[in-house]
């Protein structure tokens, strides 16, 4: 029964006893257990990643009114395995004039920066890699490594399209990082902690999406932009720059970029779940962590599904629109929301829970209403200016 309530600790104690019985030193045993756990954890994430290839292909097919993979195994479930074997067996081309070291380093850092994120994600009440007290900033730091890998890939390819794609992507990522970090500040304000574990645990009674729906929305938009997914996929722009920063990559190196992109999207689904939708919380999740891990994966899949839904529905936007949307709308809105959230939270801190939740929710609704009204007023003024300017142009 102990195993069901705290599986990690049971396995840890059992292994520790076993290793100490073999006469190993204390720190060697702990280190080896850490290493085993990490290898197992990352392998599990990679297996999930392989499954995501199937999920992505199946979902895009349904969105486009197709069947998707359905030949290999039930519902085409084993389709990713031939895909991977093909990727491994494909010839790997390093183009002439490429900077070999940087060229090879880029895909490694690209997938690595996504894998690093999983070290701090709480999967269930007592299942997580590590409870880091600066976990939210750690996520941003891992994202910085990802940005770096893209600019390395674009530069090392010695291809103008790749460089253009990398530049667009990096401009995109660094711009939308500001609203994303501000959206991360909102759970920090609410909980008073940057630890992912603490933020998830604080949502035992109510999800933060109730307290800060606008924050969740801003995080979702910024996350999609950070992922470089449609409508923010102008780094790929097939019709103009062919495929962006990974145009010269083939075989397994391309596979690493692809795997990194899919896993990144799923990871952000998990972040949305953990930060705003209660993470692993659900019926009986507190007592049975494995059930909590199941809830977490389901919620992360739902978040991932929303990201895919946006990707396959909305067309690509232009780079000037994209940057203007971020700097002239999303960034100011995120900062104003942060100020409103901080004051409302501080004033209502000692109020009863129902008053706190409704006050926070109403402040968000009010801000959203003011924003929409402001946009409408601005659009009307522009329209009227256009109408009054038109006869003058006709004369």
């Amino acid at each position, binding site marked *: 029964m102990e195993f069901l309530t705290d599986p990690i600790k049971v396995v840890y104690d059992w292994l520790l006893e076993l290793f100490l019985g073999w006469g190993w030193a204390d*720190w060697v045993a702990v280190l080896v257990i850490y290493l085993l756990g990490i290898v197992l954890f990352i392998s599990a994430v990679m297996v999930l990643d392989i499954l995501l290839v199937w999920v992505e292909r199946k979902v895009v097919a349904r969105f486009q009114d197709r069947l998707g993979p359905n030949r290999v195994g039930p519902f085409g479930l084993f389709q990713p395995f031939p895909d991977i074997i093909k990727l491994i067996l494909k010839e790997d081309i390093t183009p002439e004039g490429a900077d070999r070291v*940087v060229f090879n380093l880029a895909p490694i850092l690209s997938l690595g920066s996504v894998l690093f994120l999983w070290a701090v994600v709480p999967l269930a009440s007592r299942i997580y890699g590590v409870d*880091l*007290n*600066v976990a939210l*900033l*750690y996520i*941003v*730091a891992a*994202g*910085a*490594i990802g*940005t*770096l890998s893209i*600019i*390395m890939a674009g*530069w090392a390819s010695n291809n103008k399209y790749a*460089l253009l794609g990398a*530049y667009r992507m*990096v401009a995109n990522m*660094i711009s939308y*990082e500001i609203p994303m970090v501000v959206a991360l500040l909102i759970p920090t304000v609410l909980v008073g902690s*940057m630890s992912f574990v603490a933020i998830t645990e604080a949502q035992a009674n109510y999800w933060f999406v109730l307290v800060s729906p606008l924050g969740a929305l801003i995080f979702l938009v910024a996350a999609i932009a950070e992922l470089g997914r449609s409508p923010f996929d102008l780094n790929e722009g097939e019709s103009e720059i062919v495929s962006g920063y990974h145009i010269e990559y083939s075989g397994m190196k391309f596979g690493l970029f692809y795997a990194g992109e899919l896993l990144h999207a799923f990871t952000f689904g998990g972040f949305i779940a953990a930060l705003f939708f209660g993470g692993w919380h659900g019926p009986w999740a507190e007592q049975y962590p494995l059930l909590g891990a199941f809830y977490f994966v389901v919620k992360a899949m739902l978040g991932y599904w929303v990201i895919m839904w946006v990707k396959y529905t909305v067309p690509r936007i232009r780079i000037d629109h994209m940057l203007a949307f971020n700097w002239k709308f999303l960034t100011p809105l995120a900062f104003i929301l942060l100020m409103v959230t901080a004051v409302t939270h501080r004033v209502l801190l000692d109020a009863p829970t129902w008053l706190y939740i409704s006050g926070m929710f109403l402040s968000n609704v009010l801000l959203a209403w003011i924003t929409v009204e402001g946009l409408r007023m601005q659009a009307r003024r522009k329209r009227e200016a256009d109408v009054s300017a038109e006869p003058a142009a006709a004369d």
Partner: protein
Amino acid sequence: MTAEQIIFFLTAALILISALMVVTTRNLVHAALWLIAVLFGAAVLFATLDASFLAVVQIVVYIGAIAILFIFAVMLTRRNLLDKVSQTNAGWPWAAGISVAAFAGLVFLVGQMHNAGAQKGEVSGDPLMALSTALVSPDAYVLAFEVASIMLLAALVGAVYIANRK
């Protein structure tokens, strides 16, 4: 030698070698990438000293923003910086002599100190919370906190002014 010392010496070696590569490599993008290795090494040093906040901030600000800015700036230059001109000028023996003298002086001064060797500062409670309360409490650093904002504003205005002039 403890594990912490081994990690320190490995990181220090990484930092020194990378720093040397920054100033000797001819390719500007490579220099920027080596600089990132130096900054990453500094983050590792912060991490070994339990300064988690500084370690992640080092990566977020220096690698995530400043290094990217450097690479963007390098791409604004012309390629002729790669030309085979000498990387040193006539004054290099003087510079080398002064550097060695300054380094020897520093080693001497550090050796004179009573508490030779780095020691972790002791903070009661969670160091992160101590940092955050000190930064905003009026009897500590709140003025510095607000002045930092004005300094960032000045940097923004200055950057715009320079960018507008050309």
